[in-house]
């Protein structure tokens, strides 16, 4: 390492009190920013659980649909029309709705009911107990074993209850990659049974799941569906549409943004003020260095290096702390909605770099302005 930077590092590390304050302040700020943005990412991810779990390449829906939970039923002819679009390999109906489950002890519990295409069972979950073909039995439902499983009394294969006054029997237990956001148990059945058993409007199809013949066909399919008066989106586009809804139309995004900014300002003020005090403490010595022959650029290098060391340490510790907290929370609370993404890390890193830049800027201003003549004047 360059000798001057080594000196800068020693000056920083040997001032243990200020160094600790700087690192703790930055760590705390990064921790808060990471917590806020990770929670939001987790919420967005889990709100799009159906899209991820089903795994369809394209989704056809009413243009007013914003999130996978709030579908607007479509008439059956749309399914036929979509199937006839050149470039569509196959298209199947998909039902998603809410059912009211009456448990054996007489209590009620809302549940998400998903109806899979009877012929293909496209979008089926991974079976962990029982057989997928049992879904064709009378009154058969497949129960997803996730964090909300216990809300239906932790049913086993053969357990029966009522859904909207219809008998339902659990024939298999399944696993889905992403838990839902709203804390409801999930039951899978066939499309026909779902539309028969659950109260429905005149139209029945929640979504049409489409597999294009090739990626090149997607644009044409989207165009053709648009001409039908409906909306076709790829899974990623649908996830983005869902994200935008929560970000901009619910107030959730604004609240998270405000909290993230507050966390940033906390870090900025702690790190900025402490670093300023640190530079002030060393100011006369920096003046002496200037008198001895240090160039201003070299002093700037030292200060920037010091602030970057603090910034990166704070970033590392903050990310470690928030990741640990999230991991522990997920162990204790199975459907805890938080996830660390590369975007969150990048955002926190940018914020930390701004904190470092601001801190070093106010220090640099002081150091640049100090006149070595002041060292002689005392």
């Amino acid at each position: 390492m360059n000798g001057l930077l080594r000196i800068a590092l020693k000056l920083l590390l040997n001032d243990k009190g200020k160094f600790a304050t700087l690192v703790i302040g930055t760590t705390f700020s990064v921790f808060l920013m990471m917590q806020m943005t990770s929670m939001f990412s987790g919420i967005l991810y889990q709100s799009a659980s159906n899209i991820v779990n089903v795994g369809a390449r394209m989704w056809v829906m009413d243009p007013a649909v914003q999130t996978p939970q709030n579908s607007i039923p479509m008439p059956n002819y749309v399914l036929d029309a979509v199937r006839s679009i050149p470039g569509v390999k196959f298209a199947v109906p998909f039902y998603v709705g809410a059912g009211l489950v009456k448990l054996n002890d007489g209590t009620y519990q809302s549940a998400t009911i998903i109806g899979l295409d009877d012929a293909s069972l496209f979008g089926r979950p991974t079976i962990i107990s029982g057989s997928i073909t049992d879904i064709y039995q009378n009154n058969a439902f497949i129960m997803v074993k996730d964090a909300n499983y216990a809300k239906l009394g932790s049913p086993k294969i053969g357990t029966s209850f009522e859904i909207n006054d219809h008998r339902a029997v659990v024939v298999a237990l399944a696993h889905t990659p992403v838990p839902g956001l709203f804390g409801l148990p999930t039951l899978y059945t066939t499309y026909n049974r779902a539309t028969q058993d659950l109260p429905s409007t005149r139209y029945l199809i929640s979504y049409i799941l489409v597999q294009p013949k090739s990626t090149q066909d997607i644009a044409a399919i989207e165009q053709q569906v648009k001409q039908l008066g409906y909306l076709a989106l790829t899974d990623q586009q649908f996830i983005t549409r869902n994200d935008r809804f929560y970000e901009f139309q619910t107030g959730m995004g604004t609240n998270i943004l405000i909290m993230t900014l507050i966390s940033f300002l906390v870090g900025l003020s702690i790190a900025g003020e402490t670093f300023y005090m640190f530079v002030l403490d060393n100011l006369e010595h920096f003046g002496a260095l200037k008198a001895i022959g240090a160039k201003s650029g070299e002093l700037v290098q030292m200060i920037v290096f010091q602030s970057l060391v603090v910034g990166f340490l704070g970033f590392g510790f903050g990310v470690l702390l928030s990741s640990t907290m999230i991991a522990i929370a997920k162990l204790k609370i199975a459907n805890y909605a938080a996830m660390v993404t590369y975007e969150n890390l990048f955002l926190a890193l940018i914020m930390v770099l701004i904190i470092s830049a601001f801190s070093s800027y106010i220090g640099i201003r002081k150091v640049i302005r100090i006149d070595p003549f002041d060292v002689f004047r005392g």
Partner: protein
Amino acid sequence: MILTATKISKSFGEAPNQTYALREVSFAVDFGEMLYIVGPSGSGKTTLLSIISGILRPDDGDVVVKDVDIWKLGSDALAGFRLQTIGFVFQDYHLFPRLATLENVAIPLILRREPWDKSLAKARKTLQVVGLAEKESLPPYKLSGGEQQRVAIARAIVAQPDLLIFDEPTASLDGDTGRKIVAFVKKHILNAQRAIIIVTHDSRIYEYATRIIHMEDGRIVPGTGVDHEK
């Protein structure tokens, strides 16, 4: 001559509150000299010291150090020149309290981009010269005033500069320690390839000067600056 100052003038502030700190001051310093600049407060000693060491730009006049007209250099070149040619001992020492004594001494070498280990080795040797080898790992605040002064001297001489500038070297020391330090400087630091300029108003150390310039009201008092040892 190692240094020639010609008609140096310097004022501070704007008219009508302008103060003249120096008025056409001229003098020269030769190798092997230990020149004192003395005078009452406000006489212009510190201003003169700052100008001849390339820190404060004069309004008028030239300063030539080792055949280089230093005020014709750009700011970075001037900083480099100071680093290569001049060693400073400040009144308050200005040692970094968070660095070990050894690292403080090595700073001019580190600024010269010498390798870390080599710089520390040279600093260690220099600390031996000033008799503080055993205290190299201590931070300066754990040393006495006299020891800190010797560390500052070690830092000033570690890069073997031709010109040493001392600003009030005994101001923070008791009389006995001050005299010992200056006697040490004269005996061990001053040599035929080097000159030392000391600004002081401590008459107790005048006996060690080879020449003394008295200043008053920004001018050299006529008749001063005669070689003491001749």
